[in-house]
């Protein structure tokens, strides 16, 4: 069955200084003081605790919104769900094809034609060449780029380029769709068209997870919410409840600037 299961997931990021980034620096300037610190704390280098003890089970039908301040761990959690970050501790079990619509231009080549880019983008999203070629008619129809598809995309306007990327990225229906803020593109008339398309895609996918600061988007597409703070899930429940809690704490923030991350 399609789903994702997280148990006791921790994610720690190493923070590199210019000193620990280079091999020569690391080998030559490894001094006694540093050695003592490592022995005492068992930690080498600086770590940022991005996620702490996250437990989460996603099943078909789940529509989850991630809520929290900047740096609370929303994006990191999405990246654990997509499998980009293999957790430092705990385990992740994933069943089904995951797609994250974060960088919809990933893999596109400015010097290649529109058609070549449809295939490139399709293959980058995990399709075979044949499956990627099969997307062409739908993309042609949606983008209305007609003969422009035959020329290199570097000649496109920003809007045309986004339209192409958007069309290709939303043609495939994954089992689990992950989004970091809503994607939407183009001029006024295209915005309506692309919003319809993304809504239809969202209706089709079994599992949806969106991280967003936009209340109306979260209310529209999600029913469950997860409120994150400093890498922990501090509340789970209906999305309205999470938003209310988040907005409530948000007011405190303004009076009291947030403490620096870790």
């Amino acid at each position, binding site marked *: 069955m399609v789903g994702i299961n997280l148990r006791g997931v921790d994610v720690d990021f*190493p923070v590199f200084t210019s000193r620990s980034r*280079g091999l020569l620096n690391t080998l030559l300037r490894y001094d006694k003081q540093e050695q003592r610190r490592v022995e005492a704390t068992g930690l080498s280098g600086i770590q940022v605790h991005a996620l702490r003890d996250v437990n989460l089970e996603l099943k078909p039908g789940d529509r989850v919104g991630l809520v929290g301040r900047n740096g609370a761990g929303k994006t990191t959690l999405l990246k654990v769900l*997509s499998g980009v970050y293999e957790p430092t501790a705990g385990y992740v079990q994933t069943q089904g094809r*995951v797609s994250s619509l974060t960088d919809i231009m*990933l893999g596109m080549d400015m010097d290649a034609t529109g058609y070549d880019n449809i295939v*490139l983008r399709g293959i980058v999203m995990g399709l*075979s060449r044949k499956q990627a070629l099969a997307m062409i008619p739908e993309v042609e129809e949606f983008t209305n780029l007609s003969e422009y598809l035959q020329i290199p995309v570097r000649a496109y306007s920003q809007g045309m380029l986004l339209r192409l990327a958007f069309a290709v990225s939303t043609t495939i229906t994954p089992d689990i769709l992950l989004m970091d803020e809503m994607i939407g593109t183009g001029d006024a008339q295209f915005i309506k068209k692309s919003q319809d398309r993304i809504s239809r895609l969202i209706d089709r996918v079994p599992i949806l997870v969106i991280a967003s600061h936009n209340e109306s988007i979260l209310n529209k597409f999600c029913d469950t919410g997860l409120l994150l703070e400093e890498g922990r899930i501090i509340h789970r429940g209906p999305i309205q409840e999470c938003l209310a809690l988040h907005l409530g704490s948000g007011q405190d923030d303004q009076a009291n600037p947030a403490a620096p991350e870790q």
Partner: protein
Amino acid sequence: MQTIENRTQLALLQNDVLQSFRKWQFWGFLGWNDIAKQYRRSFIGPVWITLNSAIFIVAFGLVGAQLFKFSVEDYLPYFCAGQIFFSFMSSLINEGCDTYINAHTFLKQTAYPKFAFVLRVVWRNLLLLGHNLAVIIAVLLWAGRLSQVQWLPFLAGLLVTILAACFVVAIFGAIAARYRDVPMMVASIMQVSFFVTPVMWRPDQLTERAQWLVHLNPLACYLEILRQPLLGLAASQQAWLTAVGLLAVLCVAFILLYRQVRRRIVYWL
């Protein structure tokens, strides 16, 4: 506890490599596109690189034959094959360092198997080697030595080199992702290694005391098993043993390194 952890990491590594081969369309297309990019920018594309190396090879081939007092018919094929295979190996090592650094946009968005990007780099360089082989064939044809080529030993040598290249690219890719000064260090080492590897000179020109330059130089043994068969000669047994032995060492090093660091690579990008 530690052994269980290590065993699962080993299983994950095995899965990574298997998945990578299964996704041959992905790295195959990306590697091909890296070459196609050069074709799109100018009509003859990477043929420029071939032409460049052809011009350099012919020019130095003529001078080198004079310098080292060989006949041009002997020296040009020797230098040509040496130069092309050496640049194949050195660009594999240099580009190997950028394997993951250049793929960060991919790796930070979707869970791709890591080894697929290693295969992309190796595949891209094989495609380029394919272009450059045309120069070798032309030179051999000119020297009237094409019929002497021992194709089977050549293909065996190529296979061993490709396997070793996969491990080398993987190892350097991971280390360079963590330590960003490694690509620079590797680039300067490769520059020097051109002169200490028998690319333009022959091992028998060295004095007895300097033979270690050839015997202890891993690039020299791979160069020998690639070049000798094309010149219609057999590579020495010692070169074969070193090449295969080194392949085994690289394989073990790859497994030990990746068992530890495979899952951390994305964190370093």
